[in-house]
């Protein structure tokens, strides 16, 4: 690990002005610093900031402080009752020890687990812009099939972010100049394009202070994660779903996907194709056709295209079976 300066932020307004890399749970950042994938000159410890509350909002939703741990969030009774898809997604991620450290804000900012990003002897446009992408034509079993570019085919690793995307969560931030703003998760992440090193719309020194959930969604909540081990492994494909039935037909369907792209993936056309339809495998296939119309395999990850279809159909069948 390279040497670095350390500062502890005493209040939210000074955190950005301390001009360093924010560290909270540190479970991803310190891992990457040991490998010298990340080499910050200064760390700003934000763990003493008062951002650990979960409070109800005026519109019937919840505001989750950025420092609420993944464990505490998954176990929070209101999350388990009203946002089950989020609790399920959190519990599907990492291990008990990591969830006890990892925070809500930090989870959103996880870096990809692409092995070329992690291995500094290899080319990676995300780690070292302009050096090339080793995964294209290389070992790419875990890589993206949607929204890729010829510069980067990495996936976003978070389970939590997939549920946040489905729930239309809003990220609250404070910029280094003290001003604040709100960013819907739908607009928070960027596709790799020509600049895969830029992963979110956050500015330098902009601190995530909270994530706000709108009022709860009625319906059946599901989070299905397909991975190489039964526990403690990243998703090959994951599907978050909230489906509401009415009179034997799908009244509302919300779907978000992990493991497929550089960001949590959501496609309004997939959801619209299901609304008003009967829950049949033929209709689920039509939705999968729309989801995967532009899907592109890279060789080793070609299996993700049929796997995404099957996982989507299995989740929809399960979520509509009681109707």
């Amino acid at each position, binding site marked *: 690990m390279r040497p670095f300066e350390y500062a502890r932020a005493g209040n939210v307004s000074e955190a950005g002005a301390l001009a360093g890399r924010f560290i909270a749970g540190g479970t991803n950042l310190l*891992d990457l610093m040991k490998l010298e994938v990340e080499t910050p000159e200064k760390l700003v*410890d934000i*763990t003493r900031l008062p951002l650990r509350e979960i409070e109800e909002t005026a519109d019937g939703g919840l505001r989750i402080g950025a420092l609420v741990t993944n464990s505490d969030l*998954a176990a929070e009774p209101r999350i388990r009752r009203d946002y089950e898809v989020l609790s399920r997604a959190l519990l599907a991620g990492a291990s008990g*020890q990591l969830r006890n450290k990892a925070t809500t804000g930090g989870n959103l900012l996880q870096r990809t687990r692409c092995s070329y990003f992690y291995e500094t002897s290899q080319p990676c446009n995300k780690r070292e812009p302009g050096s090339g992408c080793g995964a294209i034509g290389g070992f790419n079993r875990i890589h993206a099939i949607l929204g890729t570019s010829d510069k980067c085919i990495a996936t976003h690793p978070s389970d939590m972010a997939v549920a946040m995307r489905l729930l239309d969560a809003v990220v609250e931030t404070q910029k280094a100049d003290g001003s604040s703003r709100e960013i819907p998760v739908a607009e928070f992440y960027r596709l790799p394009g020509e600049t895969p090193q830029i992963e979110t719309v956050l500015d330098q020194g902009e601190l995530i202070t909270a994530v706000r959930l709108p009022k709860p969604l009625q319906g059946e909540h599901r989070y299905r994660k397909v991975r190489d081990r039964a526990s403690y492994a990243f998703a090959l494909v994951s599907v978050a779903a909230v489906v509401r039935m009415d009179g034997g037909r799908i009244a509302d369907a919300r779907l978000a996907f992990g493991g497929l792209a550089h960001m949590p993936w959501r496609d309004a056309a997939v959801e619209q194709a299901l609304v008003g339809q009967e829950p049949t495998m033929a209709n689920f296939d039509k939705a999968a056709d729309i989801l995967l119309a532009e899907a592109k395999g890279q060789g080793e990850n070609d299996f993700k295209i049929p796997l995404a279809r099957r996982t989507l159909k299995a989740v929809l069948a399960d979520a509509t079976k009681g109707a």
Partner: protein
Amino acid sequence: MRTSLLDACRDHLGLTGSKKGCDHGQCGACTMLVNGRRINSCLTLAVMHEGDEVTTIEGLGGPANLHPMQEAFLHHDGFQCGYCTPGQIVSAVGMLGEVSDGWPSHATDDVKDGASLSLDEIRERMSGNLCRCSAYPNIVDAIETASTKMKETA
């Protein structure tokens, strides 16, 4: 400044019970309790834990006063080489605290309900602790035994 909580305990305080396996949060051999919750001590900086209460395997019990979890690992032969064992034991103690606080897991049928401790639950909740000797069946048995005993004496 770069010193992890694990290195601070092992190299500076001489508390070598906690083990350094992968040093990347993947194996769980370094598990400690910080303010009662289990974490990977290799993946956090000592300087970030000023004022925190840290419990290592040495703090749970020793040869003269074994913790029920330590006794259960001995009774069930929950190890072979022993390298992962301190992390397994500390993690298991932390895990039982999470269960008694009603935290659900990925193996919980209905997350709205409180947690119970089936064998599947133990396996899921302990997935952050690897054992390369694969003593897993005996580790699961040890945790189940200790859980029952700790409930009786609580």
